[in-house]
């Protein structure tokens, strides 16, 4: 059964309730190697843009949640000045997670479900440019047994890719094809950082290894960036935008931390989150946070995505990776597929931790118009 056939079944059962929650607007700054704006300024810009799209003011917002990381920012309480992005006077109802903005959106979604607030904003922001991720990221590992090894994310990803290849679940050529496809898609997306890079699979395979079996094309860039989404509960969503991206499922799951104790060729947490979020039947487009090519294969297989599902038409994390916003950017891109491109069912995914330890899946749906199937504009971005 193809994705489109399944989509028809899903849409017939979708009845919007007052308690349903939708993404009505998204905004992101282009991922760049070095952003001159401060983190607060970046957030200010994306919040402005997202609110402007649906004609909301900051005083309309009942709750906001930020996702950012002190270690990336290089300080303590680095999220405190970011209060200015929402404007916290008079005092506001807000929260902060030391996680990707995708989890900030999760908290906002839960807060809206409590039932007393109608509009929320979720944000993610990070400036990796000022530090050295390879030196910093070993510190997110078990401080007693793993951190002292100095295992950086690229080495971990290489171990994971090696297992995947040796288990017969992928080939170096398939990884190069993922890189080439991502770069092709990124070339048309001004928000992506790696644009105009080599897209010929044979030429990519001819390049040397950076960490065997990974080449530079299998790795994400180091990026600065920020993203914001506006969430609305109930019928107000349809008043604010023509085609809200309804969140029909949102779930996240963790796994055992030590990569040596996991089957790195599988992502059990992604599978559970996907099932809890309503499953992938009918999903037309999936934006998967796979900063390494091999991780896209793992996520795709774990979710059970059909062959005809369009993967990462934005260009994905491989071509733009503003840590702490990358996951929210995926959800925003999946939402835009409904808000702008008229798709019916899309999926956004975010990950955190070593070798896909923790994963979040968000399934989004658009309403069927009176004329039936909304016309997909064919623009994949």
């Amino acid at each position, binding site marked *: 059964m193809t994705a489109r056939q399944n989509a028809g079944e899903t849409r017939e059962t979708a009845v919007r309730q007052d308690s349903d929650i939708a993404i009505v607007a998204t905004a992101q700054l282009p991922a760049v190697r070095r952003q001159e704006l401060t983190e607060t300024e970046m957030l200010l810009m994306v919040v402005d843009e997202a609110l402007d799209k649906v004609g909301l003011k900051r005083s309309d917002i009942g709750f906001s949640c930020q996702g950012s990381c002190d270690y990336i920012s290089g300080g303590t309480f680095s999220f405190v000045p970011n209060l200015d992005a929402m404007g916290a006077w008079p005092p506001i109802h807000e*929260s902060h997670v030391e996680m990707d903005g995708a989890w900030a959106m999760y908290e906002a979604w839960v807060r809206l479900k409590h039932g007393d607030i109608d509009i929320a904003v979720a944000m993610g922001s990070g400036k990796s440019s000022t530090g050295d991720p390879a030196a910093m990221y070993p510190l*997110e590992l078990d401080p007693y047994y793993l951190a002292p090894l100095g295992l950086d994310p690229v080495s971990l990803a290489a171990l994971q890719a090696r297992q995947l290849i040796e288990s017969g679940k992928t080939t170096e050529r398939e990884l190069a094809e993922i890189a080439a496809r991502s770069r092709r898609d990124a070339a048309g997306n001004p928000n992506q950082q790696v644009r105009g890079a080599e897209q010929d699979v044979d030429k990519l395979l001819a390049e040397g290894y950076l960490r065997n079996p990974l080449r530079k094309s299998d790795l994400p860039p180091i990026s600065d960036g920020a993203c914001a989404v506006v969430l609305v509960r109930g019928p107000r969503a349809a008043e604010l935008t023509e085609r809200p991206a309804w969140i029909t499922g949102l779930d996240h799951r963790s796994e055992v931390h030590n990569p040596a104790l996991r089957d790195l060729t599988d992502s059990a947490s992604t599978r559970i989150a996907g099932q809890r979020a309503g499953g992938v039947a009918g999903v037309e487009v999936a934006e998967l946070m796979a900063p390494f090519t091999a991780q896209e294969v793992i996520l795709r297989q774990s979710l059970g995505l059909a062959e005809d599902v369009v993967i990462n038409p934005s260009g994905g994390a491989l071509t733009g990776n503003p840590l702490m916003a990358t996951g929210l950017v995926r959800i925003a891109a999946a939402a835009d597929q409904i808000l702008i491109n008229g798709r019916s069912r899309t999926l956004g995914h975010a990950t955190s931790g070593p070798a896909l330890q923790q994963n979040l899946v968000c399934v989004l749906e658009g309403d069927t118009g009176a004329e039936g199937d909304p016309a997909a504009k064919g623009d994949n971005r």
Partner: protein
Amino acid sequence: MTHERVAVVGIGQTKHKKRRDDLSIAGLVREAAQRALDDARMTWSDIDAVVIGKAPDIFEGVMKPELYLSDALGGAGKPVFRVHTAGSVGGSTAIVASHLISSRVHKRVLAVAWEKQSEGNAQFGLGGGKSGSIGAGGAFAPWIRAYIQKSGAPEHIGWQVAVKDRQNALRNQYAHLQLKDISIDKVRESPMMWDPLHFLESCPSSDGAGAIVLTDEAGGDAAAADGRAPAWILGTSMRSEPSSFNGRDPIRPQAGIDCAWDVYRQAGITDPRRQIDVAELYVPFSWYEPMWLEGHDIAPVGEGWKMVDRGETAFDGDFPVNPSGGVLSSNPIGASGMLRFLEAALQVRGAAGEHQVDGAKVALAQAYGAAAQYFAMWAVGADKP
């Protein structure tokens, strides 16, 4: 009420100490969480989701430690969520966990907040990881001085709070400081740290963790039927405001007032002084007790210190504050807010042992953070709302 009622049915905490050299970070959170599960008569598999809170990661040098702590807290296959809202984080962790249930996303949630200050240098961390930090005491001392000047409070008020909370700590086996010979004279004669704050008017640095198990209404009813009284959540709130701007009142911040009245409104409280039986307020420096009594409209402006002076906030007073011994007696920073929230729940469950306030039916808990600009509060009750 459109949302699910939420009950606290399990409470656990570590013995708070200057150094828990006997435990790893994972061991520390596990000790508190296991006690909360035991108290709730649950096992790890009964928990749907885990919410973890702590103050800056740089305090221990572990980035996003919830990733590593997933194993110790039974997180495999479950949602594990990390909150960080500065010093209020222990409170906001409990609130985020409660919303997972009130929203009907989950039925049984474990919330754990912790800090292992001995692994690093909090003074350095509080200064943004820069040398020469004035620390929290240095930051708050000018506002405390301003409160004293505005209110005309005599200087012994601070000493009195310092003694009262340490005497309360003697009733609490988990409290870090156990100062059996504490006295007004000792506080007054202890070294001046940040004028007007003496050494003994300041909180300690502690290793510790606190944990709670929250359930939906059916879980609360089941605990009650089993003879284990739950604490019912009557209201929760969080508010934030900027660190500084011309016209801000850092002594009685608007965010604290708004946060309190949001909770009072949900809990049906119109006269907090009369309707609340006991309060756990985040008092890391002695003077913050009268400041928060006024900052949350429990006492009229300028009258908070008089409640202290008359002994009304003492253990046997008519508005006991911090029967646990408070932050002045135990300060694992990221957990300090959680300890306020769980103590409030212990009190209305009638399970606080030697520090039980007689007849506590409604309790208020508060945590604040950064430049007295982040607030998290909840009210809990013995009776279902």
